[in-house]
């Protein structure tokens, strides 16, 4: 297997990367959720973000999608700074971003096919009839049959809802695809299929993909870059072939899932007697 990210000539020759985060910080009240996060990715490159829960992974994706404005630093897409604009002003940038939410966040008021193509209908890209056909095609891509297009989100199982969420995220051919746990709750065969699809989208359409995942196997083997986050900070970031030789205790512990290491469970030994 080759690693296009490492020796991809486009990324080197084009100067600044397509997507760049420069010292991004975000606070909720006095609580810091993102601290000095810097990352860069080019078109067609993929990155997996791993880290313990409450590391700020989902918040990072939402900042990229323009849902939360950042407090510090800059987010540059194709050289343009989107970080200072309010979500409402970003307009055309959100057209280029597709996002899958951790909780799917499908629109319960709409049938599946409208969920998938809502944006395309509302911005006038597609007529309703064409949107329906396109939705059926997209649903086929994620392994759902056409009959499901008429159902409501509440009629579907968790795994099916996740797949509808993925179909919605890719419906507008985004230049940046943000996926929050795309394979959580899916069986191994299906999650393999989804990861293949993500890889195809990234390489064929030159889409930049950032995926938050808790599946270390997928994170190590399916993405060009790996980023390890903990308590709002990036502890390690590098390409796939650098992972093997990395001497980072946080990364090592995360990848192995060991309970011994710098990532401590904040239990303070309370409640230990319940299982002792």
């Amino acid at each position, binding site marked *: 297997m080759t690693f296009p990210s490492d020796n991809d000539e486009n990324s080197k020759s084009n100067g600044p990367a397509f997507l760049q985060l420069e010292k991004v910080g975000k606070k909720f009240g006095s609580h810091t959720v993102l601290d000095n996060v810097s990352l860069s990715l080019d078109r067609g490159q993929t990155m997996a973000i791993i880290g313990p829960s409450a590391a700020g992974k989902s918040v990072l994706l939402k900042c990229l999608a323009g849902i939360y404005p950042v407090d510090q630093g800059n987010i540059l897409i194709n050289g343009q700074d989107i970080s200072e604009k309010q979500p409402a002003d970003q307009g055309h940038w*959100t057209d280029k971003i597709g996002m899958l939410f951790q909780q799917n*966040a499908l*629109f319960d*008021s709409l049938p599946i096919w409208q969920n998938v193509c809502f944006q395309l209908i509302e911005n006038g890209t597609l*007529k309703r*009839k064409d949107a329906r056909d396109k939705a059926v095609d997209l649903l086929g891509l994620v392994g759902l049959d056409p009959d499901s297009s008429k159902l409501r989100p509440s009629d579907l199982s968790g795994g099916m809802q996740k797949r509808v969420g993925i179909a919605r995220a890719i419906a507008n051919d985004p230049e940046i695809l943000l996926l929050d746990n795309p394979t959580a709750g899916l069986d191994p065969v299906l999650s393999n299929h989804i990861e293949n699809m993500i890889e195809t989208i990234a390489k064929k359409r030159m889409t930049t993909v950032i995926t938050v995942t808790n599946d270390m196997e997928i994170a190590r083997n399916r993405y060009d870059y790996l980023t390890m986050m903990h308590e709002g900070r990036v502890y390690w970031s590098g390409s796939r072939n650098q992972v093997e030789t990395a001497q980072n205790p946080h990364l090592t512990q995360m990848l192995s899932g060991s309970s011994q290491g710098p990532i401590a469970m904040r239990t303070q030994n309370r409640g230990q007697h319940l299982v002792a």
Partner: protein
Amino acid sequence: MSKTQNTPGGVRSKTVADYLNDENIRAIIYQIVAIGLVVLAGWYLVSNTLANLERQNISTGYGFLNLEASFGISESMIDYTPQSNYATALMVGFLNTVKVAFLGIILCTIIGTIFGVARLSSNWIVRKLATVYVETFRNIPVLLQLFFWYAIIPGAFPAARNAFQPLPDVLLTNRGMYIPVPVADNAYDFMGIAAIIAFIVIYFVKKWASKRLDATGQPFPIVWASLGIFFGLALLAYLVGGAPTAMDIPALKGFNIQGGYNISPEFMSVLIGLTIYTSTYVAEVVRSGIQAVPNGQWEAAESLGLKRSIALRKIILPQSMRVAIPPLTNQYLNLTKNSSLAVAVGYPDLVSISNTTMNQTGQAIEAISIYMAVYLGLSLITSLFMNWFNKKMALVER
């Protein structure tokens, strides 16, 4: 019993205890007992009443409805004089109840929605003011509020001869508000018919438009078309009717104001009191409905670059409506039933007129049975309408 006894294979024949432990048989027994108790209670009440009435020599029946009422009613939507019969008097009360309940429901929905949304405002002052409004008027008994408004409204305005005129030809006095109205004319009847026709036409246009939208994807400006059809037809009817311009303008004649349409202080007190009281509950229903929609729905809409107005209309509101409609129905029913408190400020609603009828005829059971039936009917109609509306909202855009 015979069936089980003849079963081969050594099956033990069922005893009485087996039957009593059978769930289905038990259910039937409970139902028979329950029905029996209801029938017994009903029989006791009816026979007791009839016996008592007979002992006091009171005749029963609804014959009194055709007798002359011989009492005046201060405000009426239909022709009524003391010479009219009791049936007409009760009809006047019924219409007055419906008038105040209908307007109250519409106004409390509008005001309640505004305050419900205001309670979620990001503006501190707006949010706190809305909270104070809701908490104040929700926690004062509605009867007290009616007394309060009935003390304020007649006291706040001058006598007829010094009438306060906020707008041309609108007079505010301690006898209520007088507003100019068009003099009755055939043209207005035509307009009413035109409005009904307009609604039918709009219904079919809307059906055609949604069919076309599904088939070709071309949206049709249904809102503008509907407004055009409605006002166009109404204007046409007005012009066909001869375009009357005569107005009935209120003016001081002697010590009183003649002409125009009088909105009495009693009516205003009941309407304002019920509207404000119920609007606080509607505000809470609206607030809870909006908060019931997960924040992720807003975020997902934002990530798709949808305008806030579209997200609100197509994603958030349909979901909050589903949560809000059932408790909203309760508030409408409460408002309708609370309108019977109008008797306390002398607004001639159904209960007030029924009371007078009872006093004059002694036909208490009949009068009470009439207003029980009326309130039950009004409540059921409201419920049916809201259930239908709820179903429609639940299936929106399918």
